[in-house]
């Protein structure tokens, strides 16, 4: 009795340890216990192209701050073979610097960063005002600028309203000769707006923004203008007059010097491509908690390919526990002890109903074929090998027919392990001959029931999430399996089997 007590104490301790480790992991790495808390992540790639002249090259690209209004940068990398790369800070501006002793011809440098949408406030709105860039206008421009400003000032009362009025005027050049004159000369509306505001004594700074749209390539930075209202900086879209930072605008470059400087090269150009990834909160915490022992010992550190394998492997204990439960506690008969797990793994890939239909039909057709084979008087191994070949033909035929009829579900059957199917057919067919179709139905049905239950549990997102992110929770399953291994009570099926004992 005391050995039994020790056993159960160990089991409880095992389960408690597992839960404790899971809780610690949760606290340490911030991996949530529930799935589906997902954030959208933007993967933005900047590509710098230029033609190197043959000598030393020094390319410098302005980078966004780590904390941006509405976004948070959490990972950045550079891919530029042969170049030295470093991220430097110059006058409050973060810049990527690529350097190379000797380069000739077309060069492409890449910098990519991942941004997460966040609700961080814009810290730069409180930046002090710098006195800068003296403005040079020629006489005609000076006159035109004065008149435009005058018209705008008539209908405005504050720096904000002045900016809005100016944008309105600039957007409608045909209405006024002065604006038309100014516009013809200036390269961008943003620059023109800044100069006009400067002339009116309002501090401005230029901002380069990137509108985030999913799966866009060859995007360029959008020039924006920030004006100082006297208290804080306010962003204006020089085209539309909208104020504030739009939710999908990434402020790549702010104030400072140029966006891109290339020495030793010409025709330099920067373009952006971006993609939106919906990755779960767990991947974020992975990157964030990268120094913690838990994330170091987690499966998440493995390459993506192996991770997907582990995703499946770590689900197996669940299936095993289901099989033990159904056999030990319920007393369901299955054909082959762990065959139901293999079937349920196949269901995971085919989804339930198509998988079920294909499995039953393949086994059914196989049974018919097998009954013909038994007349040939073959050796067992040869017979099963024949069956494997035939099963492959049946599956191919089903796939082709399914495809012709417009169902792609026919294909899914190919995931089923052939050998397992062949053996199942052989076993079922012997069972049929020896014990009759009744027993085939009982065992085949039992296997399918167990497989379906295992499948339903294994595809439950919560359990998927838990087994993969908290592998230690499989120890709880282990404890359960061990406990069931010591269960000496009656099976549910025995309550029916022994029912004759009641009328004694």
């Amino acid at each position, binding site marked *: 009795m005391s050995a039994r007590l020790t056993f159960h104490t160990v089991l409880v301790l095992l389960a408690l340890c597992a839960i404790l480790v899971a809780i610690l992991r949760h606290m340490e790495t911030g991996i949530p216990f529930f799935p589906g808390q997902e954030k959208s992540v933007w993967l933005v790639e900047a590509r710098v192209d230029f033609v190197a002249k043959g000598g030393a090259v020094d390319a410098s690209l302005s980078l966004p701050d780590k904390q941006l209004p509405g976004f948070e940068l959490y990972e950045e990398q550079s891919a530029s073979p042969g170049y030295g790369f470093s991220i430097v800070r110059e006058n409050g501006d973060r810049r990527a610097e690529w350097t190379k002793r000797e380069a000739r011809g077309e060069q492409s440098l890449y910098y990519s960063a991942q941004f997460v949408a966040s609700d961080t406030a814009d810290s730069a709105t409180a930046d002090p005002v710098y006195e800068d860039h003296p403005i040079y206008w020629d006489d005609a421009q000076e006159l035109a600028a004065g008149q435009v400003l005058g018209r705008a000032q008539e209908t405005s009362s504050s720096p904000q309203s002045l900016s809005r009025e100016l944008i309105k005027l600039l957007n409608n050049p045909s209405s006024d000769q002065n604006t038309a004159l100014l516009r013809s000369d200036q390269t961008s509306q943003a620059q023109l707006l800044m100069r006009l505001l400067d002339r009116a004594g309002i501090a401005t700074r230029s901002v380069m923004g990137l509108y985030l749209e999913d799966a866009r390539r060859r995007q360029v930075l959008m020039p924006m203008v920030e004006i100082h209202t006297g208290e804080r900086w306010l962003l204006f879209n020089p085209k539309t007059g909208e104020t504030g930072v739009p939710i999908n605008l990434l402020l790549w470059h702010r104030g400072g010097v140029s966006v891109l400087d290339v020495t030793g090269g010409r025709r330099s150009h920067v373009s952006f491509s971006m993609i939106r990834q919906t990755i779960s909160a767990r991947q974020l915490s992975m990157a964030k908690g990268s120094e913690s022992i838990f994330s170091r010992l987690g499966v998440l550190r493995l390459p993506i390919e192996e991770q997907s394998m582990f995703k499946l492997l770590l689900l197996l204990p669940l299936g095993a526990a289901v099989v033990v439960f159904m056999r*030990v506690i319920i*007393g369901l008969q299955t054909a082959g002890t762990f065959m139901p797990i293999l079937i349920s793994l196949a269901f995971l890939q085919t989804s339930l109903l198509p998988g079920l239909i294909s499995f039953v039909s393949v086994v059914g057709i196989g049974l018919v074929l097998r009954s013909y084979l038994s007349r040939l*008087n073959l*050796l*067992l*191994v040869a017979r099963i090998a024949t069956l494997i070949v035939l099963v492959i033909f049946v599956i191919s035929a089903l796939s082709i027919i399914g495809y012709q009829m417009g169902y792609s579900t026919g294909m899914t059957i190919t995931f089923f392990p052939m050998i397992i199917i062949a053996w199942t057919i052989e076993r079922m067919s*012997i069972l049929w001959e*020896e*014990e009759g179709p009744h027993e085939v139905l009982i065992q085949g049905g039992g296997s399918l029931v167990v497989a379906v239950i295992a499948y339903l549990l294994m595809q439950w997102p919560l359990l998927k999430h838990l087994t993969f992110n908290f592998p230690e929770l499989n120890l709880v399953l282990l404890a359960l399996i061990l406990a069931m*291994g*010591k*269960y*000496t*009570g*009656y*099976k549910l099926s*025995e*309550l*029916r*089997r*022994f*029912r*004759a*004992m*009641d*009328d*004694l």
Partner: protein
Amino acid sequence: MGIAWIKPARLRQQGMLGMNCRNVEFINRYNDRRLYPLVDNKLKTKLLAQEYGVPTPRLQFVVREQHEISHIERQLVDRETFVLKPAKGSGGKGILVVVGRRGDRFIKNSGVEIDVADIRRHMSNILAGLYSLGGTPDVVVIEDLIAFDECFAGYSHEGVPDIRIIVFRGYPVMAMLRLATHASDGKANLHQGAVGLGLAMDSGRCLNAVQFSRRIKSHPDTARPLNDIHIAGWRDILILAAQCHDMIGLGYIGTDIVLDQHLGPQLLELNARPGLSIQIANGRGLLPRLRHVESLQERRQMPAEQRVDYAMRKFAEPDAAAQGRAL
């Protein structure tokens, strides 16, 4: 009938042994895995029985290789009757009983005639492991056919009635007679529809009969009343069963014994995982008897006869004894 389920408390009260309990507390505890091959392989059991002088149907010959099958008719030429079985078969699978010859053809116990090609195919299936546990290669055992005792005439359909006795640590604890029926296709397995007949440990008298877990009074095929079955020479049969423990060394076994008209009780095979239906056939649970044997502190190994006498006394049916006196 009518009751679909039984409460666990009621089963416990009756001392019914469940499968989980059997596996964990008896098979795992008292049966040394190392010894399993001796019972799982009927050829090994038979050779061991011959060594220990335990009566068993005589071994005629063994087929081990595929090439021996091609000229098997030479070995079968002067054999009128024989039983052909896989050494590692389970649940009566793959057993072919030939009860006579008609020229080149063989007559099965079911009356169906087969030819030598059928026998070849059957043998080749056995060798390939069709009937063996886990599909491992097997050998074919050909042995004498039991001339079964006239006392069972009219009680069994096709197959030979056999007596299953559970022997725990050398003590016979429960017994039943298994009668093949039409439904069981001549097989003696209860779940296939054979009739299970509980036998009183003290007298070998019928206690209770079941088919498909239901109580019956008469044989379903022959309608002969089952209540008056009384096995003669009961003590000898129990002794034979008890000897099997000494021979095989396993703590918890099921012994299958058949009665030969001329040779008396014969050991057919042993089972290291005997089923639980015997309890239904007896209408009694195994657990109290097993616990009693477990509690016996006797270290010194008693001879089989003494153990049998003890079991016949200890597990006697009180009402049966009273009835016996009344008669």
